């Protein structure tokens, strides 16, 4: 813990991307100042620190900003060497990066799309999500460990971790069913183990507040899509 210098995290309470960074910092025992941003009414600070996207999370370390959650995780892992998130071996690191990318682009993204869409589009998105879960289940089973990272939480667990506390809500809001625990026993067990970790479970947003937010958001997105279609 040779690194000194202020660590700040700009986030949004329900953002799964910001949550990834919180988990990484907590697992490494890194003290940080959390700054809540209203992403629908962005502060000058956020626009200054992330001029390209104006999005959270942004990690500020020694006054320098880093954005994009997966890039921030890599940075954290390189600066604070305790409780490593990525394996040492380059091949194993490549596998972790592959599955992290898969978790973000195929697992998380498809669930969100399935929640926010309707009709044929929804059916397609649910199908994609289930296929993604099948691949994820296969890989978890193949590894045969408690977490993707082994016996301790690692990079892929943190990136995929948002499904542990948000998936059920997305399913409810979107009237969809993806995670059938009889079909996905390894993922179901992984979710249980992940949420059992005190640092993971600590400080997660309230379920009813998340439910209200997702309901509102998915209605907004649906009406945006309708207005594009009829325009």
């Amino acid at each position: 813990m040779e690194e000194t210098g202020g660590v700040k995290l700009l986030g949004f309470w329900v953002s799964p991307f910001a949550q990834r960074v919180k988990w990484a910092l907590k697992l490494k025992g890194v003290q940080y100042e959390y700054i809540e941003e209203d992403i629908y009414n962005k502060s000058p600070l956020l626009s200054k620190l992330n001029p390209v996207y104006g999005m959270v999370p942004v990690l500020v370390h020694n006054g320098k900003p880093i954005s994009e959650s997966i890039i921030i995780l890599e940075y954290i892992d390189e600066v604070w060497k305790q409780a490593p998130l990525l394996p040492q071996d380059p091949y194993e690191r490549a596998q972790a990066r592959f599955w992290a990318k898969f978790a973000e682009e195929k697992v998380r993204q498809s669930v969100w799309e399935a929640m926010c869409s309707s009709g044929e589009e929804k059916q397609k998105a649910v199908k994609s999500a289930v296929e993604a879960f099948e691949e994820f289940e296969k890989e978890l089973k193949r590894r045969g460990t408690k977490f993707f990272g082994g016996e301790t939480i690692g990079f892929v667990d943190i990136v995929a971790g948002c499904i542990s506390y948000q998936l059920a809500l997305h399913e409810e809001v979107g009237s969809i069913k993806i995670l059938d625990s009889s079909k996905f026993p390894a993922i179901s067990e992984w979710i249980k183990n992940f949420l059992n970790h005190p640092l993971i479970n600590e400080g997660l947003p309230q379920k009813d507040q998340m439910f209200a937010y997702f309901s509102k958001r998915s209605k907004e997105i649906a009406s945006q899509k309708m207005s594009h279609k009829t325009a």
Partner: protein
Amino acid sequence: MSSRGSKMEEVKLFGYWVSPFCRSVEIALNIKGIQYEYIEEDLTNKSPQLLQYNPVYKKIPVLLHNGKPIVESMVILEYIDETWKNNPILPEDPFEKARARFWANFVDQKCFPALWKTIWSTSEQYEQNKAEALERLKVLENELGGKRFFGGDSIGMVDIVANFIGFSFRTIQEALKLDVFTEDNFPKLWEWAENFANCSPVKKCLPPQDKLIANFPPAYMGKTLVSSFQSRLQLQFHPPAAAK
């Protein structure tokens, strides 16, 4: 081009010659001076090896190192940089490394799709797609600033990932008579592209421009797109006049 390291290491690359994702890997291998066997895949008839080595996506590029497959071009670039330490393509400093990854992502996820869309625009869509592409290129031009390459004095990960902008896009754009990436609009990027295409690790794996045009789009993209492209080449696609 000599093989670094004390033992003979078996490096194979499954690729498709038109693919800029595949080209990224070739450039990185060339920068490091790694000897490799290149295997051209017919994407309309994928080999059993490709399906075995990339069961999740069934796509190229696939790097095989001592029998172990690595897939997804950006993941492969990171693997190459961590395995062969000479001529690094990412900076040493964690903050600069994060910055390079950020811009590589921007090129990959924002610039490439925007430019790709302009190629496939109908005349009605062109102006809007062009506007989006110009916006993205402007951000990139600002980031390049006064640097010779995004990587500084020598090419790095961002330059490698941007190979489509540096070479193929300009070739296709010229054939279609599009006016997206011009020297007037983007003088710094234009100069970057000239320098980039002339770098020896890049030059080694660039196809001749006429071959690229004659074989674009690749057959696996489907007959409709291929014939649409060919008829545009004959028409020499012109964006609509403003008055319409």
